[in-house]
């Protein structure tokens, strides 16, 4: 059962990772990247590595989103195209 769960989670992680690359909007890409690290943390939990999962959760969920968001804003690449659709 654990193998199947891990396989489904890996597919989800790959979908989110593809979204990071394919989404043209940087804000959406940051959201997708935080989702990637989120699913990776669950994969580590399912594979019974709680310490690695905790590190991944700490760095991936909180800090990378904060650092990426502030960095993108500082660089002036921060745009929201609310009107148009940016389908991946």
């Amino acid at each position: 059962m654990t193998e199947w769960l891990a396989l489904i989670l890996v597919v989800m992680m790959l979908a989110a990772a593809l979204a990071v690359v394919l989404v043209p909007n940087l804000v959406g890409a940051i959201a997708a990247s935080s989702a990637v690290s989120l699913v990776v943390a669950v994969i580590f939990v399912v594979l019974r590595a709680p310490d690695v999962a905790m590190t991944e959760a700490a760095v991936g969920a909180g800090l990378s989103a904060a650092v990426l968001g502030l960095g993108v804003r500082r660089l002036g690449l921060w745009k929201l195209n609310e009107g148009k659709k940016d389908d991946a």
Partner: protein
Amino acid sequence: MNLNPIENLALALLGGAVLLGLYRLLRGPSAVDRLVAADTLSVVITGAIVVVAWLFASALYLDVALVYGVLAFVGTVAMARALEGGRS
């Protein structure tokens, strides 16, 4: 561990919630939709990690859920701050 039908149904609903959140994250028409989806997804995943900890009958995994809940909030607030300051 043997699960009874109620628990199986609960696990299926939890997985469905994660899949629906991921759908909104991948599909979301605008960037802010993806942010909202990532925020909600992080809370759902916190609950899911607690359930996995119960399935494995090991309290170690609760720490992962705690760290995850705390840092997902930090990431959300950081992204919101960047979004506020991002207007020109």
